[in-house]
């Protein structure tokens, strides 16, 4: 079987091999053929995915790709135009009140009460999900520990730093120990230190058996956190699988970045003519090249670039999800995100 066959390149409803972490664990979330239209714009076009117990699934795509719309339909916050969602086999939609108790939702934007303390926020949302008494008290203590807010638990949250507010935002979602935790870009605007702590907390939840759907446009987060990744663009999942499976879609291609001075655009055009080069894009003072067998092609790439520019630096990058996104969409992920 070829490497390309191991990951699925989505055309309609992708079905992929389960991640090793998921193994034969039961399916917690099953979403099939989700569709949502806003007027003339079809924001989500037939998205399907499954998440198993203990599996962290990353939905990787630029802003506007349909990640938030998809996650909002999954948690029953947004009415869908088509498709179905089940949680442990129970259908979920906007009216499925009881079934929603099994979902923890961490929205992209902060969703906390600024005039209440972290403890009061947790008390309110905990009771909303049916926790009470000693159980609620215990869980609040545990969550405050997880998100590192124990010392400031009784302070009003409008006195918190952005990172602390983000951590509380996540803590509320996992307070009731849901079967499925939905995290919609939870680290946007978070400082690197807090981001690292947040990612570590989420990884720990996955290890404890929670099914997690994590949307992000940060490739590094998806690589670090997720057992499987679905690459979404323009409302469609273009491919999904483990990181290794997705990278295999790119084949033996590597990414070479040349730092140059001079006529960057014409230099990129010259580089694109070198045999083995799949694409060469000029951006600022770099030429980003997707090429087969980079180490062998490197001298010819430099020669071609130096016809119209001076090469100041060379960087060979092993295939990663960024390269996969480039391969699948023809755009760099970071450019698409802008």
């Amino acid at each position, binding site marked *: 079987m070829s490497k390309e066959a191991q990951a699925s390149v989505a055309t309609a409803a992708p079905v992929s091999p389960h991640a090793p972490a998921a193994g034969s664990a039961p399916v917690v979330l099953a979403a099939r053929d989700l569709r949502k239209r806003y007027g003339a714009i079809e924001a989500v076009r037939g998205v399907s995915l499954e998440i198993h117990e203990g599996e962290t699934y990353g939905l990787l795509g630029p802003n506007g790709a349909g990640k938030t719309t998809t996650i909002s339909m999954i948690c029953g916050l947004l009415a869908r135009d088509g498709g179905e969602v089940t949680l442990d086999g129970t259908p979920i939609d906007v009216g499925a009140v009881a079934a929603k108790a099994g979902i923890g*939702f961490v929205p992209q934007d902060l*969703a*906390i*009460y600024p005039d209440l303390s972290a403890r009061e926020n947790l008390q309110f949302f905990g009771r909303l999900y049916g926790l009470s008494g000693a159980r609620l008290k215990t869980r609040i203590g545990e969550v405050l520990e997880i998100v590192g807010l124990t010392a400031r638990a009784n302070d009003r949250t409008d006195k918190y730093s952005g990172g602390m507010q983000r951590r509380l935002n996540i803590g509320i979602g996992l307070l009731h120990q849901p079967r499925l935790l939905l995290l919609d870009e939870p680290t946007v605007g978070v400082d690197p230190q807090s981001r690292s702590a947040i990612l570590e907390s989420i990884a720990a939840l996955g290890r404890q058996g929670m099914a997690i759907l994590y949307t992000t446009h940060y490739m590094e987060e998806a690589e670090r956190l997720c057992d499987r990744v679905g690459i979404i663009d323009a409302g469609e999942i273009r491919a999904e699988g483990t990181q290794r499976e997705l990278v295999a879609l790119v084949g033996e291609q590597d990414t070479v970045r040349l730092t140059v001075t001079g006529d960057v655009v014409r230099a990129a055009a010259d580089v694109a003519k070198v045999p083995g080069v799949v694409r060469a894009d000029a951006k600022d003072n770099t030429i980003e090249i997707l090429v087969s067998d980079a180490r062998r092609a490197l001298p010819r790439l430099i020669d071609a670039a130096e016809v119209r520019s001076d090469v100041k630096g060379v960087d060979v990058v092993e295939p990663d999800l960024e390269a996969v996104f480039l391969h699948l969409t023809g755009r760099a992920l970071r450019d698409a995100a802008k």
Partner: protein
Amino acid sequence: MRMALLIAAKDLRQRLRDRSIILFAVLAPLGLALIFSLLLRGASSFHANYVVVDLDGGSLATTFTGQVLGGLEDAGVATVETLATEADARQAVEVSNAEGWKADAAFIIPVGFSDAIASGQPTSIQILGAKDAGLQTEVARSVAARFADGVTSVQLAVLTLGDLRGAPPAGADLAAIVAAAQQAAIVLVDTATGLRQLSWTTYFSSAMAILFLFFAVQSGMLSLFEERRQGTLARILAGPIRPGTILAGKALGSFVTGLTSMLVLIVATTLMLGADWGPPLGVALVVVAAVTSAIGITTLVTSFMRTFDGASAANAAVAMTLGILGGTFSPTAQAPEAMQTLSLLTPHAWFLRGLAEMQGGGTIADALPAVGVLLAVGLATGAIGFARARRLVAAR
């Protein structure tokens, strides 16, 4: 119900932290009721100091000083002192001492006053008013004018008698006729409703309470916009709760806020201002109905708006308009008839009417029509408002 209580309790905790609700629900109405009561306390207990100078000494002058001005003294409306000369009278109203003016107004009866009346000749009573005693002077002027009207009637009667008898009455006979003319021919006494009105203090206490009640209860529905802005509404909706339960929780929070506001105002104005709201059970019924009505109208108004600012402004405009129409700044009884009729479209007027019906000999049963109207308004507007407001919390 447990979820609605949870949301209501959370809202109440937030409102206590946001002290503006205390300002709107308690301090502002209490302060205004206090100010209005103090301003009008003098108007509700009128008393004047008058002096009179009788330069005539005739029987008709004595009738005026004894029966007319004496009547004012007997009624406790005025204190009357007799002075000897016009100069004394002028000094009494023009020269102030440490306690203010000696007299608010002076009556000066000229020489020949009685003879002039007996002979059908024109005469006058001079009124001297002190500065800043406009009301007392006007009352003095009215008293003299009322006497003059009687005298005119007497002169007509005297002429008629003179024609019939050949000689006009004089002396004691004439004085008796003049005295009889000062008595009102018909006295209207309304024993059924005469006492069924609120004292000034109670009126302004209850008027300010109902006016600001509409500001106090609007915070519940307005918080939907705030929750939407800060993302917490979406987070709640993603949980195991129905949209209708969220609305019920908001309404419940408003209800408790409104009741608490009214309770604090009733106790405070009773203790601090001496307001008499009426029988507690009846007052409780009227207040509960009024709070229901305020929540219904506020919900309806909010359901038409799309933003916090818009809803806030619309609710404020409606509250003030209904308040003015409903007689919260001046009693509707003093307004033109059309305005009195229009006021019946407002919960404010029915609230004040419900309280007034229990004054005097009124009972709780007398307030029930007002309670019924308030509840009907609240339930009707609330039903429409809640149906419309579901779009504010519904999934998109």
